[in-house]
């Protein structure tokens, strides 16, 4: 799985902890990494992703449905699930302010032992976003 993930676009390095069942991925600086592709690649290698968390920088935008989203690249954005931590981000939508966020992008539905990942991904903030 480590080699398979390491071959994916935008991946700089992959660290796997067998004991903890944890995989840490460091992206390249080219900004071409695709979390959905990583989940699919992990699933294809016979391992189920229970949870994915990301730390990302980007600008707040409104997507085509009017929902708040974090834009991390011109062609990549993640819808934000409204919660306590996301309060106040609406005001930044459309501005040039860059924020750094840490949140959960994917969680396996409970009960299903080995289900294909459900997409699209939505970002649930776990920490209050920091400006800059």
């Amino acid at each position, binding site marked *: *799985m480590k080699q398979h993930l390491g071959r994916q676009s935008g991946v700089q390095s992959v660290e*796997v902890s*067998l004991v903890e*069942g*944890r*995989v*840490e*991925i*460091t*992206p390249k*600086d080219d*900004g071409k*990494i695709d*979390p959905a592709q*990583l*989940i699919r690649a*992990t699933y294809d290698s*016979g*391992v*189920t*992703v*229970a*949870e*994915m*968390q*990301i*730390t*990302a*920088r*980007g*600008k707040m935008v409104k997507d085509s449905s009017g929902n708040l989203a974090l*834009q*991390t*690249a011109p062609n990549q954005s993640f819808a934000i699930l409204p919660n306590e931590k996301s309060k106040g981000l609406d005001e930044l939508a459309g501005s040039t302010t*860059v924020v*750094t966020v840490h949140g959960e992008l994917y969680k*396996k539905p409970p009960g299903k032992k*080995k289900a294909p990942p459900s997409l699209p991904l939505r970002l649930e903030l776990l920490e209050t976003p920091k400006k*800059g």
Partner: protein
Amino acid sequence: MKVKKLTLLLLLGATLAVVSPAQIQHIEMRVEGMT
């Protein structure tokens, strides 16, 4: 003088934009079924 200040400001802005691009910085996954 004003032109100099403006140029410096633009250079600083461009430098900051290069240093701090918007992007995914780190990904962590918890996985099941790994041997």
